């Protein structure tokens, strides 16, 4: 198989995932950290599902399911100035994500 890119933001290939798996990273959180997968501009929206499916394949067996990585804000990269404008010294935000 030629070079297959899974994470386009961080240039992570299928072979990178295979090597990380061989090095003992058997869950998506660990694969993410070890390869940089899902840590770029799209924050996993483009690659996490593909990586999860590939990880399930590598694990083998009938269980073609794997836990996704924890979703973190922001939904979309947003300029710091937008948030600075809403800063206030009031009580903590009660609607923690």
């Amino acid at each position, binding site marked *: 198989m030629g070079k297959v890119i899974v994470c386009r933001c961080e240039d992570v290939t299928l072979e990178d995932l295979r090597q990380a798996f061989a090095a003992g990273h058997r869950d998506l959180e*660990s694969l993410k950290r070890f390869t940089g997968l899902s840590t770029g501009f799209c924050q996993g929206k483009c690659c996490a599902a593909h990586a999860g499916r590939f990880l399930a394949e590598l694990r083998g067996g009938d269980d073609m399911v794997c836990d996704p990585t924890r979703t973190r804000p922001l939904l979309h*990269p947003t300029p710091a100035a937008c*948030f600075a404008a809403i800063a206030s010294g009031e009580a903590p*935000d009660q609607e923690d994500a």
Partner: protein
Amino acid sequence: MRDRAELVIIGGGVLGLSLAYHLARMGLGDIVVIEQGYLCFGASGRNGGGVRQQWSTEDHIRLARRSVAIYRRLAAETGFNIWFRQGGYLFLSRDAVAAATLERNVKLQNSLGLRTRLLSPAQARRLVDGLDTSGVELCAYNPDDGVLFPWPVVWGLARVATSLGVEINTFCRATAIDVQGGRIVKVVTDRGAVATSRVVNAAGGWSSQVARLAGVELPNRPYRHEILVSEPLKPFLEPMVCDLADGTYFSQTMRGEICGGLSDPLEHSSLNTSSSLRFLSRMSASLLRLLPRLGGVKILRQWAGYYDETPDGNPVLGRTAGVEGFIQLNGFGGHGFMLAPAVGQIMAEWLLRRVREPLVERYGLERFSSGQLQRETLVIG
């Protein structure tokens, strides 16, 4: 999983793994490490990677200095690039009291061999292009502080320790510590039990919970600490910038991201790692106050970890009265990564050679009942 070991370490973070790494290199590899999540699950995978030697107590300065020396060679020793970049740390003070603290600290740091120096706001602006120093009284700068990428440090320590006989069990939770006649005999996990006479509590934010498994009460409490990163930018920011007024800190990682956080006086102790809009907005405002030209830079991601805080800002180390074999290695309050290499090495020597170690005695759990406290005042964020 092994059913017996010389030593069991609860917590596969940078402290537990630094201890395992140093012990294994000194010849004691018969160690089982128990980690409740994946490697980097706790604060060791969630911190900003800052490694500074600018502290207010002699112990912390010495430990940080020794740690930096170890970090400088760790990539070669472990085979992992830890992306350690010594761009310095720049502290900003905004009132006479904080300025006097910096002056005092710099004197102490210089007497211990650090190259820290006081800078005027104008000198600080020359160091950080675009820095807004309005309201800044005095600055302190040590060119030998730096930032690293925490994850490869954890993997590197784990890899070497494993190659020397240490067994690291991830996704494994300690459920009981069996104490009989005042001595530890076994650790029970959700994947089986390990017979042992010595257990190290290196559980960071969970250290008080782990101590309770052995019937021990620690004064440590976990506090959420939030952090964020921006999109990557061309390298432009040499030092980590720390504002003493509100605990804001930020640096540029080797990937180019601006990474930083700030203190929140309203944060109360909890095991909560959710992300808040309050933090995102306060941090953005603070960042733009210091570097106004970053207004258009996009924030990519925010997350949170724990500071395992003690009443005096110092760690809890060593033996536990009443439970023979129960060893504490926790309470690092947000700076475990800065001190872990040296503390792991000192604790390893202390455990193996069974000699008196003044540092371990000074930071023993008993100090909280005897009242011998020496407060570290430079805890940031």
